[in-house]
């Protein structure tokens, strides 16, 4: 029987699912608005209802995103020489022979991914709030147009980054997904992927 170590606590797991769930609603309805997908009326009922879902899922997303800062920000801001080496070797993903350098609680790619999600998430939230809560006045047209642009640039970024994250956390790395269900991983698994972290917690 493998010894297990805890990688995520219950709060982290629940919050991750809340963030993922709200993002899914936002992205689907976002595509609906972007391309006027009337097929989505069979899910949301009408575009008016879909807007309500989109706006309030956005509120959930913002709260959840802010809460992730507790878990991931400080570690994500600490880039080491090992992380630079990880990037130069593409994390060992583009060859079966290359060995990635030892990694912390989050590997270099995960750190970068988190920072991208945090920055793009804050930008898409702020611009979304402007579009949602603005008065109808044309005096603020410039602000609305900039928000519209930022909202869509971040959307393009996130609809690329998040499917990539889902792939890397499931099919590409068997054994990873259980962190978001049980929060624990086999010690051996952790040693291979987060060596520095395992040393730090001293299991």
């Amino acid at each position, binding site marked *: 029987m493998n010894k297990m170590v805890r990688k995520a606590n219950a709060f982290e797991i629940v919050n991750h699912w809340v963030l993922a769930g709200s993002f899914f609603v936002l992205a689907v309805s976002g*595509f*609906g*608005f*972007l*391309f*006027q997908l*009337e097929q989505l009326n069979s899910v949301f009922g009408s*575009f*008016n209802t*879909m*807007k309500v879902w989109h706006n309030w899922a956005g509120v959930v997303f913002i709260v959840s995103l802010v809460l992730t800062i507790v878990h991931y920000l400080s570690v994500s801001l600490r880039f080491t020489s090992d992380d630079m080496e990880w990037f130069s070797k593409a994390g*060992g*993903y*583009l*060859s*079966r*022979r290359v*060995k990635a350098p030892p990694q912390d609680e989050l590997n270099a790619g995960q750190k970068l991914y988190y920072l991208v999600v945090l920055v793009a998430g804050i930008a898409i939230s702020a611009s979304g709030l402007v*579009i*949602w809560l*603005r008065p*109808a*006045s*044309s005096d603020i*047209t410039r602000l*609305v*147009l*900039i928000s*519209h*642009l930022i909202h*869509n*640039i971040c*959307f*393009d*970024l996130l*609809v*690329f*980054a*998040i*499917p*990539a994250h889902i*792939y890397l956390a499931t*099919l*590409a*790395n*068997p*054994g990873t997904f259980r962190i978001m269900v049980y929060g624990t991983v086999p010690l*051996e*698994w952790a040693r*291979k*992927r987060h060596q520095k972290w395992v040393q730090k917690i001293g299991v």
Partner: protein
Amino acid sequence: MARKALLISPERCIGCRGCQTACKEWNHLPGTKTVNRGTVENPPDLTPYLYNRIRYIETATEADMVRWLFVSQRCMHCGDAGCIKICPAPGALFRTKEGAVAFNKEKCIGCKLCVAGCPFDVPRYDDKDKISKCHLCYDRTSEGLLPACAKTCPTGAIRYGERDALIGMAKKEGYGKVYGEADLDGLGALYAFIDPPKLYGMSEKPAIPESVVFWHKVLKPLAYIGLGGAVAAAVLHYVAFGPKKDEEVKKDE
């Protein structure tokens, strides 16, 4: 069906504002309380309950002669409409078979993006947060009637008909250039100006905001390309390199 349009001739307008009133009457738009600003022009701007308004412009020309110009301000019914382009709700803003830009309040989701997408600052929002603007009386024109404004105009300052015929008419009347002939794929409200458009309070080169064009041409397709690209990259990676299995990681050591 040939595209229909309005031809507005400020030189013929006597400023009676019959069109303002007729428009309100046909569209059941309530009156609005305004204040005396020391000008005949009233109300000072388009409102959710005022689709068409006569602008009164006092101006001195190069010949130093004071002129008083009366110009109808309203939705221009652009051939390439910024409001339709940016609108996320299907059917909220739509083109009628006569070529006008009309709206359906039930489909409008109240996002107000059309306010930012309009080159002419036309869309207004009513107290229920729904779009409100001139729809060229498509509920009349579809039945072969004239729009309320054109119907009531006593001097022919607002004329309605086939767009090409109206342009021909204006040229025959001696107007070399018709405002809105080519801009934005042709406007549905044409203006016969004898002086530069600026004098009449119109922008010389109306255009959809560049960011909206960029969004439409680049960012929109990128959303599909990004999502598809991520999925395709994942499939390719899985096939070409495969997953990082624990056993393989072990073997690497």
